[in-house]
């Protein structure tokens, strides 16, 4: 993902991503029109559904919480020069670990002890599941992309096995564990807001949103404000140069993947501790892959990731609302939009850059055009 754009920096970080997003949404609008719906009507319904009511807004932010975690996970790995496709499996293991701890200890421990324990468990579960592919990448030379894909499937089958054979509550038809004791329940946002006297409609949104925002600050501070973070980004930019500077690339691979897995594992706090209150099968349901789109759109930076997570949260919530309103529209459209964004903001991110540079050069003349010439010469 190295940039060789002839663009000035401000345009590279603002204009180009917006242009790519516009192209992706434009293609999505064409698809919507092609299946016989009115794109404008769909857009209006989506915005209304996602932001129009406090309830809709809460749902959008609830989805966004999960996407912040998986987006940060992809971003931290990307800053370390790695592509972590395993967010899906790491999130499953984070949730599984939190769930196991809750099933085991929640009946005998108060929430003050229980919730931090679940937090640690989800971090440990995700980090451990990412550490194996990281080790194989760092010390055995097997590519992390392939091994994390394999680990997604292994995590999936492990979860099915444990739920079907060991954790399923007796007499229950659906494949899910017994409900956790109340102390393992992360407060919902409307409960938390009620404590300080604000009335808010009930929704799956819970206090893990605050955890997600905290995670953004931690990631920003670590990557851009500490020496350790600098080492990680140095390896991401150029492993050989970093090695000459005395940094061990292998160790940075381990650190960035473990951090990445830990962030993905935090999905367990939102979905398992916050919303479901029990272990079940499909609590990640593709969020790990959405994280790829989120990180690509957000340029692997916490600010960008929060913005694109809210966009994706709104797409998911709005998409669900549109499905109610318009017969023949399915929420899978949102998945397609996600794919278009990965394509245009990720794989084809720099296809439009030369044209944008030419357009900018025509409008601005002078410094931009000069910069463009120098960049293309170098």
């Amino acid at each position, binding site marked *: *993902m190295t940039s060789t754009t002839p663009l000035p920096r401000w345009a590279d970080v603002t204009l180009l991503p917006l242009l790519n997003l516009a192209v992706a949404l434009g293609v999505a609008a064409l*698809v919507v029109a092609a*299946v*016989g719906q009115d794109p404008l009507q769909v857009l209006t319904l989506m915005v209304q559904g996602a932001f129009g009511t406090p309830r809709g807004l809460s749902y959008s932010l609830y989805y966004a919480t999960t996407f912040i975690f998986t987006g940060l996970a992809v971003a931290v790995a990307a800053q370390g020069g790695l*592509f972590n*496709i395993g967010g899906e499996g790491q999130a499953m293991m984070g949730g599984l670990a939190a769930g196991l701890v809750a099933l085991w200890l929640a009946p005998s421990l108060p929430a003050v002890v229980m919730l931090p324990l679940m937090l640690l468990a989800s971090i440990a579960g995700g980090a451990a599941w990412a550490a*194996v592919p990281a080790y*194989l990448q760092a010390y*055995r*030379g*097997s*590519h992390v*992309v*392939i*091994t994390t*894909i*394999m*680990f997604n*499937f*292994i995590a999936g*089958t*492990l979860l*099915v*096995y444990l739920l*079907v*054979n060991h954790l399923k509550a007796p007499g229950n038809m659906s494949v899910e564990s017994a409900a956790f004791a109340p102390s393992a329940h992360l407060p919902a946002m409307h409960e938390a807001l009620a404590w300080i006297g604000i009335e808010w409609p009930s929704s799956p949104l819970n206090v893990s949103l605050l955890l997600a925002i905290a995670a953004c600050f931690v990631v920003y501070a670590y990557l851009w404000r500490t020496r350790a973070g600098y080492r990680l980004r140095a390896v991401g930019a150029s492993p050989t140069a970093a090695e000459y500077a005395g940094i061990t690339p292998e160790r940075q691979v381990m650190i960035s993947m473990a951090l990445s897995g830990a962030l993905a594992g935090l999905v367990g706090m939102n979905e398992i501790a916050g919303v479901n209150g029990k272990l079940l099968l499909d609590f990640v349901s593709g969020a790990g*892959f959405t994280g*790829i*789109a989120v990180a*690509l759109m957000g340029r692997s930076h916490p600010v960008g990731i929060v913005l694109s997570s809210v966009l994706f949260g709104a797409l998911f919530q709005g998409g669900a609302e549109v499905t109610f309103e318009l017969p*023949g*529209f*399915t929420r*899978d*459209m*949102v*998945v*397609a*939009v*996600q*794919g*278009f964004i*990965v*394509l245009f903001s*990720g*794989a*084809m*991110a*720099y*296809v439009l850059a030369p044209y944008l540079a030419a357009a900018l050069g025509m409008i601005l003349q002078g410094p931009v055009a000069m910069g463009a010439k120098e960049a293309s010469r170098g």
Partner: protein
Amino acid sequence: MDDVLIGSLVASSLRVSAPLILCALASVLAERSGVIDLGLEGKMLFAAFAAGAAGVASGSTTLALLAGCGVSVLLSWLHGFACVSHRGDQVISGMAINIIASGLTAVLAVAWFHQGGQTPPLASEVRLHELFPSLSSALRTIPYIGPVLGEGVFGHNVLVYVGLLLVPAIWWLLYRTRFGLRLRAVGENPHMVDAAGVSVQRLRYAALSINGVLCGLAGSYLVLAQSPSFSPNMTAGRGYMALAAMIFGNWRPVPALWACLLFGFLDAVAIRLQGARLPVVGEIPVQAIQALPYVLTVILLAGVMGRAIAPQALGRPYLKER
């Protein structure tokens, strides 16, 4: 174990393996030319949808196959446009194809057929049937080896045999033709190929085109032979399993075939072992056998048994010097 059981085991192993073989061959071609192809899953899914939709609409097997392969080749070219022409990230482009296919096929299926994302079942005359029905039933009467030969080996539709025959064909293409030599060279050292005056881009596009046809056949197989109709996400990870088989086969067609057959056999066994108790080990969870292909691939990649060696220039976009 009796001969009937072995016969049906062989038969179902081959049935499951067939799309894996086609897809694994597709990824051998792409990766040997230096292009990572994670989009196998998406291409297969879109091809399955196109074949299903065209089969329902036209009632013709040929048109269904053409639609399946056509869509898949277009997606391959999209991959090429992003990664070969514009030097985009190959892994990201492949993931994009998978996500787009997973969403778009469901959207189109709902819009066109109004059946919750499925296509109507394909008519029997569109579907692929046993290639040698009379030979198969004649062979079945032979004692001992009858069921294995009749049901297991000769009881399949044409695409199964096409898949098997394509293995030597692709081997020949890769190792015995000038095109194959160049294709392998472009995956190892594109600069050398360029210096020899051969177009790197054209070779990679050629590899991706054949790759698209093979993925298209694999996807069409799913609706024309395996399931009665298209349903959302019906590929269920087969593309990734084919990728695993290709790596397991060390980026070579014939070993990849054995890996596909092994994975197919494991799948066939997993269904039969459900709840069965084995001596010594006791009951084996089905999920353990289902996860085995992925676990084995990780172990292989870890270098514990043998060494997986990828093409040198794999995943690196080639920038022609001026």
